[in-house]
C-alpha cells in the first residue's frame, strides 16, 4: 500500500522544512548585469550542491570522471591536454573550454549548440566521449546516495531528484565562477597601480586597429560572445557553427573565447593547435589563411595578418598576461569540496 511505503520512508519524515537561503551574487559593478533565469534562482544550498556535483565522479558511468576532471581549477577550469580523455579512453576533437565569467555567456560550446548553462550541463554526462552515463542511471545513483537526497531537498524542495535539478545546481555554481580581480581590473577599472611600458603598448595594440583584438575580444568580458572565423584554415575538418545552423556562411565559425586567465589555459583554439600564446600572436600577425567565411574584421589577410614587430608581439603578450586573476584560481569557494 502506498501509505505504508511512505511511512517506511524515513527520509521524508526526517526532512526539515524547505527554506533555502537566497545566494547574493557579489561582483564588481564594472562587470555587466548578470541575468539569472527565473526558474533557477540562486540559493546557498543550490550553489553548494552544484559545487559538489561539479567535482563528483558519480556523474560518470564508472564513477571515475567528474566535470573537474577536464575543467581543472589550476588552469582556470580547462584541460591542459589538447583533447580531453573520456572514461573509456576515447578522445574528442575539441579542446576543453575554460570556465570563467561563464554566467554572462548566452551560447555555450565552441559551436554554440547549447543556450544557457542548464542546457549545457545535460550534455557531458551522456556524451559517449566524456562521462558516458545515462540520466536515469545518474538520478538513480544520486537518489540512493547517503547524502545527496537531503542536499537536493534543501536546494529544491522536491521529493524526487531529477536531472533538471542536477543541471540547475551545477549552473548555479558556475554562475559564481566570476573573475574581476586581475591586474587589468585593478589598473583600468579601479585606478590602482599602473601598467608597465610594455603592458601599456600591448593595451594600445589590443584596443586599437593596430592589433584589432578588441572588436572580437573587447569589453570587460574580453569576448563579444559571437562566432567568427579568425583565419585558422582554408578547409575545415571541423565546420563549427555550421554544424548547428546548417548555413554554409557559418562554416568554420567558432565562439570567441573570453581572454580572462588566458595565460593559464593553454593549449589554444577549438582544436588546441597552439601550445603557447606566442604561437597565437604569430597567427594573428602573419599566419592568417583566407577562406570564404573569414571574418570581415580580420585585417591584412593577403599579407597573413597585422605584421607585428617582435617588440609589439612581446608587448601584446605582456598585456594578455595582465588578465590573469590568481585570486580566481585560488578561491576557496571554487575548490574541490571533497578535499577540504
Amino acid at each position, binding site marked *: 500500500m502506498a501509505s505504508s511505503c511512505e511511512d517506511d520512508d524515513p527520509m521524508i519524515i526526517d526532512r526539515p522544512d524547505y527554506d533555502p537561503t537566497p545566494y547574493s551574487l557579489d561582483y564588481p*559593478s564594472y562587470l*555587466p548585469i548578470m541575468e539569472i533565469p527565473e526558474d533557477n534562482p540562486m540559493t546557498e544550498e543550490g550553489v553548494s550542491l552544484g559545487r559538489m556535483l561539479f567535482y563528483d565522479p558519480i556523474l560518470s558511468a564508472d564513477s571515475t570522471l567528474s566535470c573537474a576532471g577536464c575543467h581543472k581549477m589550476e588552469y582556470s577550469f580547462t584541460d591542459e591536454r589538447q583533447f580531453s580523455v573520456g572514461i573509456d579512453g576515447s578522445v574528442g576533437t575539441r579542446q576543453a573550454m575554460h570556465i570563467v565569467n561563464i554566467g554572462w555567456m548566452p551560447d555555450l560550446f565552441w559551436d554554440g549548440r547549447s543556450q544557457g548553462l542548464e542546457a549545457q550541463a545535460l550534455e557531458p554526462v551522456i556524451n559517449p566521449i566524456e562521462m558516458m552515463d545515462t540520466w536515469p542511471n545518474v538520478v538513480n545513483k544520486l537518489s540512493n546516495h547517503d547524502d545527496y537526497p537531503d542536499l537536493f531537498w534543501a536546494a529544491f524542495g522536491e521529493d524526487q531528484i531529477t536531472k533538471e535539478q542536477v543541471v540547475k545546481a551545477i549552473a548555479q555554481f558556475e554562475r559564481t565562477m566570476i573573475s574581476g580581480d586581475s591586474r587589468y581590473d585593478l589598473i583600468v577599472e579601479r585606478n590602482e597601480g599602473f*601598467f608597465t611600458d610594455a603592458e601599456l603598448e600591448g593595451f594600445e595594440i589590443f*584596443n586599437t*586597429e593596430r592589433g584589432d583584438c578588441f572588436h572580437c575580444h*573587447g*569589453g570587460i568580458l574580453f569576448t563579444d560572445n*559571437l562566432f567568427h572565423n579568425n583565419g585558422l584554415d582554408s578547409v575545415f575538418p571541423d565546420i563549427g557553427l555550421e554544424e548547428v545552423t546548417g548555413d554554409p556562411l557559418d562554416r568554420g565559425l567558432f565562439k570567441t573565447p573570453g581572454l580572462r586567465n588566458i595565460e593559464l589555459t593553454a593549449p589554444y583554439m577549438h582544436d588546441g593547435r597552439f601550445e603557447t600564446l606566442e604561437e597565437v600572436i604569430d597567427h594573428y600577425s602573419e599566419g592568417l589563411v583566407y577562406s570564404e567565411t573569414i*571574418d570581415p574584421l580580420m*585585417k591584412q589577410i593577403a599579407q597573413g595578418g597585422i605584421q607585428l614587430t617582435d617588440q609589439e608581439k612581446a608587448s601584446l603578450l605582456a598585456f594578455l598576461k595582465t588578465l590573469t586573476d590568481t585570486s580566481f584560481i585560488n578561491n576557496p569557494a571554487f575548490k574541490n569540496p571533497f578535499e577540504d
Partner: protein
Amino acid sequence: MKMKKLLGLSVLAILLITACKEDPEPGTINFNITHKVDGQTMELNNMIYMSPAGHPFDVKRLKYYLSNFSLHNTNGTTFDTEVIHYCEEGIDETKSFYIDRIPSGTYDKLSFVYGLDEDTNVDGGLENTLTNINMEWPIPGDQGYHYMKFEGTYDSLSTGVILNYNLHTGATQGNQNFVEITVDLPSDITIDKNTWEVDMVMDMMEWLQNPNVYDFAEFGQAIMMNQTAQEVLKANGVDVWSVEKVVQE
C-alpha cells in the same frame, strides 16, 4: 589611458530596448526600419552591390545607434525624447521601436542623431549590457561607443583579391562625429491619442556617395582614428535616411 567610471553611473543608465516591454501609452508612433542598398532591400552576405568607387561589395554586418528623436509640430514646436535605439540587421526585434505619449498635434518632420551625442557618448554612458559592451570604442584617449559598424568585403578589381572593409564611425581625437538628421514625413501625422506606423529607410549606398565618393581602397580597413575618413562619412550620412510611408492604425 582610458579609465572607466562605471561605479555610480548606473543611475544615469538610459533605458534602451527595455522600454519596448511595456505597452505604449496613447499617442504612439511605431517606427519600422528597412535597410536598402541603392533602392533595393539589403540582403546580408548574398548580394553583391557596385560601389560608386567601382568596387563590387557585399555587406556582412550592420549595427548602429539612433538617438535624440524629435518630432516637429507644424506649429513650430518640437516634441523631444531621450529615446536611444540600437539596431542590428538580421535581428528583427531591433528593427522597430516606438515613441509614445506624443502630445496631440500635427507633425511633418522627424529629426534624430545617427550615433550618440556628447552627453551619452562617454565611457559607461549606456547601460552595462552585452550589446552595449560590444559597441564600446576602447581606443586609448577616445571615448564612448561605436555609432555604426558597417562591415563586409569588396573586390579591389585591380588585384582580384577580396578585401575586407569596416566602416566604423564614432568620436575620435575630440571630434564627436555624430550625424544630425532631419527627414520630412511624406504626409503629415495627426496625433490625437492614436497610433501611427512610420516606415524609415536607410540606404547604405548613400554612405558611399553624395557629397563624397567613399572608396574602401583609399581609406583602408582601419578608420577609427582616421578623422578624414570620419568627416567623409559624417557628410555622407546626412542624406542616408528617408521616411517612405506613414499610416494611421
